[in-house]
């Protein structure tokens, strides 16, 4: 739903003044952006306009009265009220009353931080004709690439799909960081499309490595890659027990797959190995290069590491590295 943001990306002052803008949704970064663009629109229309911010918790009935009262200088005003969920109960009616007939010279922006609290006020406000709601939604993993592309475009640049995917992988799924990265790249490369190599030069490394990527690399026997992935995983805060359990699951599937009788149908094989059917192909590939003895050795190493990361050894990172080496070593030992 971040596209909704784009519809309000360039609001006119007339959309804000005499209206109430309701900003909701869990993505704090997108919410802030909506607020900023509203403020910018009003300021563009009248550079003399007065802008103020307040917390909903301090919005008493008296303060509400000030909102609507004509100002001595009759200047145009834009008021941002944050944390609408903390609005005192006694002020609810006053606010709804004001929102029903907002003053023409005041733009009121109400920001709700998401969650269940304060939904009563939101529902009352939503029913009013002069209230516009802009709601941000959490992005799906598949949408981050498009978000980056949109950011780059808004700065007048271009980026291809591979490069934006790489950027998401490198920076992580934090919208603020992604927007910042997109801004930086477009200002440093104003006239050329942003390519993978540019992204690599600026953002080497990975932000998020899933623990099973480490296990998969080790089971394929790619020792160096596994160690590298492990480092990234640990540096980005992956819990050590997730790594050992990913290894345990991988090896369990492998052992059960290898123990299954030959010539089984794939669906039965999946049930036997206790993995989803698509995993069978992976297991078949991985199982080349493994024998019973190696798997047994690897499982022993993982079991030891599991106790190690839970306190049997003083250095969890070292215990995991040793586990990766022992597992990968057990494979080549055929």
């Amino acid at each position, binding site marked *: 739903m971040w596209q909704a943001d784009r519809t309000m990306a360039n609001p006119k002052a007339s959309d804000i003044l005499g209206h109430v803008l309701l900003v909701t949704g869990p993505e704090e970064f997108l919410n802030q952006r909506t607020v900023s663009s509203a403020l910018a629109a009003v300021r563009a229309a009248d550079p003399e306009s007065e802008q103020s911010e307040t917390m909903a918790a301090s919005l008493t009935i008296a303060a509400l009265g000030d909102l609507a009262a004509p100002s001595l200088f009759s200047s145009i005003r834009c008021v941002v009220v944050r944390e609408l969920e903390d609005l005192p109960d006694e002020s609810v009616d006053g606010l709804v009353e004001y929102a029903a007939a907002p003053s023409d010279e005041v733009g009121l922006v109400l920001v709700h931080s998401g969650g269940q609290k304060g939904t009563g006020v939101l529902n009352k406000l939503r029913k009013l004709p002069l209230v516009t709601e802009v709601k941000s939604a959490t992005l799906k993993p598949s949408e981050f690439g498009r978000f980056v592309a949109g950011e780059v475009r808004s700065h007048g640049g271009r980026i291809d799909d591979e490069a934006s995917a790489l950027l998401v992988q490198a920076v992580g799924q934090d919208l603020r960081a992604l927007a910042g990265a997109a801004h930086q790249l477009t200002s440093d490369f104003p006239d050329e499309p942003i390519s993978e190599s540019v992204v690599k030069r600026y953002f080497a490394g990975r932000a998020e490595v899933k623990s099973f990527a480490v296990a998969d690399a080790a089971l394929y026997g790619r020792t160096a890659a596994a160690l590298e992935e492990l480092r990234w995983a640990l540096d980005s805060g992956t819990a050590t027990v997730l790594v*050992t*359990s990913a290894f*345990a699951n991988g090896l*369990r599937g492998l*052992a*059960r797959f*290898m*123990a*299954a009788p030959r010539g089984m149908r794939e669906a039965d094989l999946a049930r036997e190995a206790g993995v989803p059917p698509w995993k069978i192909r992976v297991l078949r590939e991985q199982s080349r290069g493994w024998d*019973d003895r190696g*798997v*047994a050795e690897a*499982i*022993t190493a*993982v*079991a*030891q590491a*599991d*106790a190690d990361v*839970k*306190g*049997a050894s003083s250095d969890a990172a070292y215990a995991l590295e040793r586990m990766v080496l022992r597992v990968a070593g057990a494979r080549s030992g055929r």
Partner: protein
Amino acid sequence: MTTVAPGAVWRTLVGQHHVADTLARAAAGQGMTHAWLFTGPPGSGRSNAALAFAAALQCPQGGCGECHACHTALAGTHPDVSVTRSETSMLYIKDMRELVVRSALVPVEKRWQVMLIEDADRLGDAGGRTANTLLKSIEEPTPKTVWLLCAPTLEDVPQTIRSRCRHVALSTPTAEQVAAFLVEKDGTAPPLAAFAARASQGHIGRARALARDEATRNRRREVVALPGRLTSLGACMNAAANLIDIAKDETEAITDAANARELAELDATYGDDRKAKASRTYRAALRELTHSQKQRQKRREMDVIDRSLMDLTSVYRDVIAVQAGAPGALVNEESRTDVADLARRTSPESNLRRIDAIFFARNQMSEFNATPLLTLEAMMIALRV
């Protein structure tokens, strides 16, 4: 030194005559002290011994087993006997603080304020803060207060606590003693009693469960049959998964009913009102209940797994006994052919290593909370024939 004729309360103890004498004399006033630590292998009747001692202390006749004081003390309803047992994996500091307060009260019936902790081995968190909470009270309790702590071994209790207690060591009862107890107390048929006593290796509670319940016997038979089958990697993985399943089955049989009952009680407290159920306090109470139920479930599962490991150990013990030509009955006499078969296929050294592997796995789980399935898989691999 005069010998006090042991009262009826001591008769529930199996094979612990020397201990019963000491305790009976103490209850009569000879050598009484303020803190006692009962140790003995699981199932030897530590908490029963402590409870019998509590009854003897409260009973005007030193444990007649007939009077009101004896009955209520043994049933756990005596006002001056507080019994603490942990249903999860540990004792919590907040509960211990409450115990300290209670221990300072004057006994209602003017004899003793008995503070019994059934699993003092679960006091030891890393910093020892839980144990430290009790230190002062155990060291110098009020004149009428007596602490009775139970633990498998001395080493399971923090040094600071240990040194403040008088030690009572219980021994493992012999199979004959356990069998006789089963026949006398439960009216078990002698052959079944003999089997249960042997298979339990002196664990009285386990022997009773084996004697009473067909399903328990079947589960044990499955576990005991495992070692001979561990011939391939696949078999090892299956065996580990089976062991977990057996533990889950057995635990669910016990906990499901209790969980449902507790939930019904909670619902009754809050009423059937929909509004009450949507309330924050109800949701919080429900969360706490399910959390403690989960912890209890985990603890029980671990207990069952632990017992299965002991059953496995008994098989290897038998195999070594056969290999060494040791006289006497096997623990698993009824599967002697399997044992003999295993004895032919393996060497005594390798079986000692297998027993080591079992104890290693047990330690990994109890000390470091290692994942049971993974630990058992590694263990089964080490047991492979």
